[in-house]
């Protein structure tokens, strides 16, 4: 039996110029905050930007953005609502505040279903907030989204970086493009990660300091734009464009 969803998935992304998966081997390194702020910063430069949260079992971007009372519109598929100027899609539109205990197969199916029915329209950038680890979602975007590239987030900790090495190794062996590595939550810069990233043959894009003011900005796009985190990411973005 043929799965008709795979047939349209690619077409749904046909008018998206650049697709960036924000990823890491590890959780808690700042993928979600980076995804949101990256999307907002691109939007501030007048790009048309979409944000897709693929961390189905622990979605965070809706909390960071402060999304409330929004819902996609059903129209020959579904049209993502706009949050903070971004075309925004998340499983929380369907799971709400309930736990979503999804096995890998369910994650894969949900991802395919959502991507097959979501009509992004024309976008300059689609930013995808990935779940941690090298599981179904990561393997599926690599396999199904042809022109994807990865932005990797790490912290200065050896625990995070060990998993990042594995992710780089995997992406390299699959010839999936890596934009580079962002070092987040830097407290006292020792330059260790920069050297390690160089050794991997991957671009070190810059660092984002630990920002004690970030937590108080959660849920407000305006406040997020006033954080040091935002300023740091802006600087990194300059080197990326």
């Amino acid at each position, binding site marked *: 039996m043929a799965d008709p969803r795979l047939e349209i998935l690619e077409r749904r992304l046909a008018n998206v110029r650049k697709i960036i998966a924000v990823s890491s081997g590890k959780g808690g390194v700042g993928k979600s905050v980076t995804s949101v702020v990256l999307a907002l910063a691109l939007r501030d430069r007048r790009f048309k930007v979409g944000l897709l949260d693929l961390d189905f079992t622990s979605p965070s971007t809706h909390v960071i953005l402060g999304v409330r009372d929004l819902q996609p519109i059903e129209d020959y*598929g*579904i049209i993502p609502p706009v949050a903070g100027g971004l075309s925004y899609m998340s499983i929380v539109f369907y799971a709400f505040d309930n736990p979503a205990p999804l096995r890998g197969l369910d994650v894969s*199916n949900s991802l395919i279903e959502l991507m097959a029915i979501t009509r992004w329209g024309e976008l300059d950038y689609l930013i995808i907030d990935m779940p941690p680890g090298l599981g179904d979602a990561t393997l599926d975007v690599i396999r199904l989204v042809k022109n994807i590239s990865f932005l990797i987030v790490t912290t200065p900790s050896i625990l995070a970086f060990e998993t990042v090495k594995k992710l780089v190794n995997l992406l390299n062996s699959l010839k999936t493009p890596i934009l580079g590595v962002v070092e987040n939550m830097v407290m006292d810069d020792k330059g260790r990660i920069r050297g390690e990233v160089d050794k991997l043959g991957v671009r070190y894009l810059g660092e984002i300091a630990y920002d004690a003011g970030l937590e108080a900005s959660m849920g407000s796009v305006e406040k997020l734009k006033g954080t040091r985190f935002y300023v740091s990411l802006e600087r990194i973005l300059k080197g990326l464009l």
Partner: protein
Amino acid sequence: MHEWALAEGIISKADRIAIENNLEITDIVIQIGELQQIDDEILQFALEQLRTDNMKKARFTLETIKAKLKCRACGEEWRLDLSSLDEESSEAVHFVPEMAHVYIKCPRCGSPDFEVLEGRGVWLASVRGVRKDG
């Protein structure tokens, strides 16, 4: 109305099969998992509208497959009573069938850790046609 998006996928897949096998398609059978509660009138209408030149006279047959679930925790197998879902949950499962794990629990042990044995999604079950000349 996201039935149109699903119809698009079906037509496109069938069209590709037609091209690859040089077929004029006469019959297309589509299986619809009950779980997703597709509006088959809308789907049928969408298919009619979207049909391509390779399937001008094709007949679309829609078959609904009953949902059958099996609990991974206690082994219970059951058929789903979809009317037990409230509107919001029902809508969610309509768009993303895996949301079943959010809104449905095993009737025996209460676990959301079940397998959908049958009745998930929309599938192109078979495509028949006659070979075109040349």
